[in-house]
């Protein structure tokens, strides 16, 4: 027996059990007829089930004991969910929700369960999403849910699954929407790879719909393959704009997420009628951290990095989502995926994206470039609007050159130079760095003057150099309130780079001394070493360090050509480099808000 067969059977049994618990009769013969593959086992189960009900029902139903137990108010937030729906029993044995007759469960997610249903009166098939009621305990939250869902309902676009009605039944909010008889993109991809053109066309249509919603101030925030259905005409339709949130709403809070384990996620994903962890539409201030946690746990694999990092989420997050869908269509896997949600999140935030053409050599370069541009970590490096994405995809489809030319070499270079890392670590170093620059410059100035005075003895240069070191160490101690050792991995790298530089410098000095060369002949080598050290820090501290490193490399032969000014030139270069670095951090420190951690 396949596991799929089993899980289908389990779903059917779940349906029967819930119906029985809510005391809604089910048309068993119809059920058995409809599911012939399971008929035998289902019938056997139902017989056992009846026997158990006979035995159990007289013993059941002493709810009062629950309600009166000591901690009821604080520890059983699910009480509200245990109430059965008060609704008439349908003659054909279906669950009912207001004027909707629920036919079968289509799927469930963090927010609730989606049913295929029949709307009476209007007589049309609909999909009904029944939200978990946990997070909607208060009137205030219910009202917020309504407002948001109604905002989403006001969006009318052929690429969106329209929401018909928002209502509450027995404290459980639900909304009905058009029933789309088709697969979602995840199912589509599972059934087989799509051509590049097909993938581009799908995402272009999705991007149109997203652009439409964005122009009206509504974000989706949870774009992923499972939320895009392909209707019978082949048109992609985005669902779940119920999660959509107005721009001005607060950013999603993620940090709590980190403590969540996967079993929680599993529970959260599957529970449908209960649970404070279930996600609400309204994960706004005032809702519980668990609520907010749930909102995140849905699909970290397709989440934008800024969302995963708990930063402010804007339209760029949906642009990322478009890229993630395109990536999925082209490679049949999400951009980032790890064993646990937490690992996935850290990949989303920091991990390198595996280039599309490494996963799928068939993928067109331009299309890969479009997806990868959408998936840029930094929101400002992505397309500006969803409309731009759609436009570029259509250019690709029409065989025209695309706008996102990938990144030109120059673009990559300027970005690398502009990039800054660990700002929060180094921001307070500005003044110390400038002080280093001044001391180093003065030290070399003294040595230059000694050299100009005609002294060529190696030993004459040692006292000023050692004094310079002593002053530098004193500044370091003072600026770090007494501690000389690195405090963490970020600092350790800086420490080890400069320690290596000093040791190499000393070794070079020894070499020049024992080979009997002039004191000044060590500076071209020192300049090369300094250049290497700065260059290394380019990827760790600030991209401009690459340029500083380059300047030292260029200076090295010049220092060799002008030995009389080598000491002074080297000192000036150091002074300027540290002054520039120090000024920049000093300015950053004054302009950035105190708690900025970017």
């Amino acid at each position, binding site marked *: 027996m396949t596991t799929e067969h089993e899980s289908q059977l389990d779903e059917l049994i779940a349906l029967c059990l819930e119906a029985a618990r809510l005391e809604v009769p089910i048309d068993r013969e119809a059920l058995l007829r409809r599911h012939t593959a399971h008929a035998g086992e289902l019938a056997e189960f139902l017989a056992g089930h009846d026997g158990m*009900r006979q035995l159990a029902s*007289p013993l059941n139903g002493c709810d009062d*004991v629950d309600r009166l137990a000591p901690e009821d108010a604080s520890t059983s937030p*699910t009480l509200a969910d245990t109430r059965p729906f008060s609704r008439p029993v349908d003659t054909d044995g279906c669950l009912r929700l207001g004027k909707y007759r629920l036919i079968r469960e289509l799927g469930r997610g963090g927010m609730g369960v989606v049913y295929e249903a029949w709307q009476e009166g209007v007589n049309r098939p609909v999909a009904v999403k029944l939200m978990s009621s946990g997070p909607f305990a208060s009137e205030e939250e219910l009202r917020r849910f309504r407002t948001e869902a109604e905002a989403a309902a006001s969006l009318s676009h052929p690429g969106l699954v329209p929401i018909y009605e928002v209502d509450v039944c027995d404290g459980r909010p639900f909304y009905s929407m058009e029933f789309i008889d088709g697969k979602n993109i995840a199912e589509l991809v599972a059934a087989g790879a799509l051509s590049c053109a097909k993938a581009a066309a799908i995402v272009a249509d999705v991007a149109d719909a997203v652009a439409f919603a964005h122009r009206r101030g509504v974000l989706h925030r949870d774009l992923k393959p499972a939320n895009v259905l392909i209707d019978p005409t082949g048109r992609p339709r985005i669902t779940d704009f119920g999660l959509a949130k107005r721009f001005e709403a607060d950013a999603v809070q993620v940090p709590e997420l980190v403590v969540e384990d996967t079993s929680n996620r599993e*529970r959260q994903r*599957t529970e449908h009628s209960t649970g404070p962890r279930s996600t609400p539409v309204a994960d706004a201030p005032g809702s519980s951290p668990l609520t907010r946690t749930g909102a995140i746990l849905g699909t970290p694999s397709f989440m934008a990095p800024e969302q995963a990092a708990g930063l402010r989420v804007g339209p760029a997050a949906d642009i990322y989502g478009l890229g993630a869908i395109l990536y999925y269509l082209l490679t049949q896997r999400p951009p980032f995926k790890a064993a646990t949600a937490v690992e996935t999140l850290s990949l989303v935030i920091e991990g390198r994206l595996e280039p599309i053409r490494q996963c799928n050599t068939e993928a067109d370069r331009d299309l890969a470039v479009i997806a990868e541009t959408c998936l840029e970590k930094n929101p400002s490096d992505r397309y500006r609007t969803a409309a731009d994405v759609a436009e570029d995809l259509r250019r690709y489809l029409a065989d025209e050159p695309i706008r996102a030319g990938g990144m030109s070499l120059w673009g990559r270079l300027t970005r690398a130079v502009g990039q800054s890392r660990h700002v929060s670590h180094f921001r307070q170093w500005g003044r110390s760095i400038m002080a280093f620059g001044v001391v180093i410059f003065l030290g070399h100035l003294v040595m230059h003057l000694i050299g100009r005075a005609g002294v060529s003895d190696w030993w004459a240069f040692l006292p000023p150099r050692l004094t310079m070191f002593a002053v530098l160490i004193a500044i370091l101690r003072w600026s770090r309130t007494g501690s000389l050792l690195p405090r963490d991995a970020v600092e350790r790298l800086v420490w080890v780079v400069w320690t290596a530089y000093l040791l190499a410098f000393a070794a070079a000095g020894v070499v020049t001394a024992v080979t009997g060369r002039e004191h000044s002949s060590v500076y071209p080598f020192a300049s090369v070493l300094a250049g290497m050290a700065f260059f290394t820090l380019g990827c760790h501290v600030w991209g401009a360090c690459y340029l500083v490193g380059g300047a030292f490399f260029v200076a090295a032969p010049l220092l060799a050509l002008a030995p009389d000014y080598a000491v002074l030139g080297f000192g000036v270069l150091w002074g300027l480099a540290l002054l520039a670095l120090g000024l920049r951090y000093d300015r950053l420190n004054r302009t950035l808000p105190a708690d900025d951690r970017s």
Partner: protein
Amino acid sequence: MGDEKRRRDDPGDLGRYREYLRFLAEVQLRGPLRAKLDPSDLVQQTMLQAHAAADQCQAENSAAKAGWLRQILNRNLLHAARDLHRDKRDIRKERSLEAAIHESSCRIDAFLAGNDSSPSVRADRNEQVARLALALQELPDAQREAIIRHYFHGQSLAEVGEKIGRSGPAVAGLVHRGLKALRGVLRDEEQSEV
């Protein structure tokens, strides 16, 4: 007199009812009470008291004896629940808790002792519940838990899932396999009802 003496000396006699009582305790201990009180502690206490008071047991047959044990269990349950409430000093709540437990045990009594049914039906029911209790103890923990919570505590699959850390359909699977294992007991039940 000799009969009574024999009964008291034979611990296996009362031991037969252990699973039965445990089952009833599990059925009655629900929600937050379940988290605070261990059914097997209550059964242990009940058995000890029953042994100590075996002299006073007038029960002629097994159904009556089961009823007597149920009374002791109910009293213990009530006391334990009351103790939990004592700190709160909420008399009104305490009263209603008492009433609730009383009501639930009356309901069980009414079902098992069957005021309106013949002695043979009464014996049958007790027998069935006792057999069910025994059979349930044979099940893997997760299956038993799922069945008791769903059928006897009236919890939804999602609620059960939350408590035991499984998904809704997975709970349905547990119930399904559990019922399969209990098939013999349940089939008899069905036939006796027909």
